[in-house]
């Protein structure tokens, strides 16, 4: 077994509409994999199929080496939060976790440790219905950690969390990954994913647009050089120089944007100098995941 999750041609059709269509991807064992896509692109549908909640219309898949047709073989080692937290409003946070602990046959002694871990230690006794959005989300994460999972599946775990909560989740995921837990996490916070996800699966309208290493996705995107001349009259001259040397270029907000790698920066600087233009700034930028996402999903 080398992959935590592996699906081939996975498909789910609701009536006329395909929520997921022939998805094929793999999540390597022991890594953090980000799962991204616009609203309604099929992320939650995929996650539900991986957890045995809905039956695929077609295709196959394995989780921790076992077929998704037999969720009972792998779910004891999987922690999950699907589409936000869902608990019994009349029970306290701690009791809610104990219900799930009884169900999975886990020691209820873990409940206190987990509440501590997600920062709910002093509110574990309060009723769930009195929790704030972020507290509910934290309880959902605690529930996902109940089994000491080998694979953690999180559907938008940072929804509703404050900045420090977001950071805590990021650190939690990093810690778990360093202990060898595989994490499959869907999120709309692309800058967060960029920091933690070694690999990515990107969906649009139920189809996989990209599945592979984050690094490869970003590297495939063209880098940009941003140059600022000392005198703005030279802007168009700089554009001409770049185009003459085979690089797309344009003027944007008093700077010249050139589609080129960082390495070409030195050459460009020399060319500008030879043309009698002094650059007051020259920076190379790599596309962020967010820009790449917009580029690819056409959103």
């Amino acid at each position, binding site marked *: 077994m080398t992959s935590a999750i592996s699906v081939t041609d996975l498909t789910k059709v609701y009536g006329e509409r395909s929520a997921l269509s022939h998805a094929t991807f793999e999540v390597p064992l022991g890594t953090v994999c980000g799962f991204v896509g616009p609203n309604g692109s099929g992320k939650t549908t995929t996650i*539900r199929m991986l957890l045995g909640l809905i039956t695929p219309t077609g295709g196959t898949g394995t989780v921790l080496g076992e077929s998704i047709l037999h969720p009972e073989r792998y779910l004891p080692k999987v922690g999950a939060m699907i589409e936000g937290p869902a608990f019994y*409003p009349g029970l306290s946070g701690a009791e809610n976790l104990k219900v799930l602990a009884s169900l999975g046959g886990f020691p209820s002694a873990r409940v206190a440790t987990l509440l501590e871990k997600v920062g709910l230690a002093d509110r574990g006794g309060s009723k769930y219905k009195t929790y704030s959005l972020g507290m509910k989300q934290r309880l959902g994460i605690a529930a996902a950690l*109940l089994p000491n999972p080998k694979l953690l599946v999180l559907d938008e775990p940072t929804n509703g969390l404050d900045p420090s909560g977001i950071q805590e989740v990021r650190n939690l995921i990093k810690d778990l990954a360093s202990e060898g837990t595989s994490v499959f996490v869907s999120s709309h916070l692309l800058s967060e994913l960029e920091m933690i996800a070694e690999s990515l699966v990107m969906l649009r309208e139920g189809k996989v647009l990209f599945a592979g290493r984050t690094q490869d996705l970003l590297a495939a995107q063209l880098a940009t050089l941003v140059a600022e001349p000392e005198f703005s009259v030279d802007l168009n001259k700089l554009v001409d120089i770049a185009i003459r040397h085979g690089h797309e270029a344009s003027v944007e907000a008093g700077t010249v944007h050139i589609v080129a790698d960082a390495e070409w920066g030195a050459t460009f600087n020399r060319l500008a100098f030879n043309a009698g233009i002094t650059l007051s700034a020259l920076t190379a930028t790599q596309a962020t995941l967010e820009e790449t996402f917009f580029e690819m999903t056409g959103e």
Partner: protein
Amino acid sequence: MFNVMRAELRKLRRPTLLVSTILVVAALTALFTSIVYLRANSGQGNGQRGEIISPAILSQAAGLVYGFKIVSFFLGITALCVFASQTAQEYTLGTLRNLLVRQPSRMKILSGKYLSMVIFAIALVTIDAIVAISVSYGLAPHAKVTTTAWFTSAALSLLGRTFVNVLLTTIAFGTFGMILGLLFRSPISAISTGVIWSLILETILAGVVSSTQKWLPGQNFDNIAQGGSLTVSYKWSMGISAAYLVVGFTIVALLFKRRDVAN
């Protein structure tokens, strides 16, 4: 299955549900039993459906269990509501997905829930028995009822039989509630359908066309607790109740097993 049962009992144990149910059951049992005894010498209706239950009747062995079984229908409705809501709320709260991730076998979830329902029903019937018998014994002197016949072995075996019958009635209504809960997937629809059907429609139907009584589920469930009536026998009620519930439960169990959990 036992893990599921333990988890379910944790939910049922929550004070607001448990305490209020116990208090209501105890209060109603006490109320109806008191009426039987306090009006025993009035010559007016003091029993079910305006029957006259005289002190002479109450002084027999059956007097021990009269108050106990008088609230069976109400215990049934309580079980129906509690279990319609316990099953349907998993859908409306979205908690079913958590349950199924921790216990993927849907049949184990269902049987664990069923077991917890049976335990809850046993608790309801036990409270009913204790309260009814205590009130009966306490009010017997006032109603000029002699209780010597209550302590014979015949009375005790009648008590045992009545306990089982009232329990069967409560479980039958509880099962009906679970069926409705799984079918409607919403506590409000399930409870209102169950209550309106059993409490109102059936009563009207049975009143207007008495021959329907034999076929109405709720009437038959309750007839088990009464040990049968003059018009419908105990055996018939057992048979028809079991048939309804087995068919109904099989259908919803298959639905539950197959249906996508997409909320």
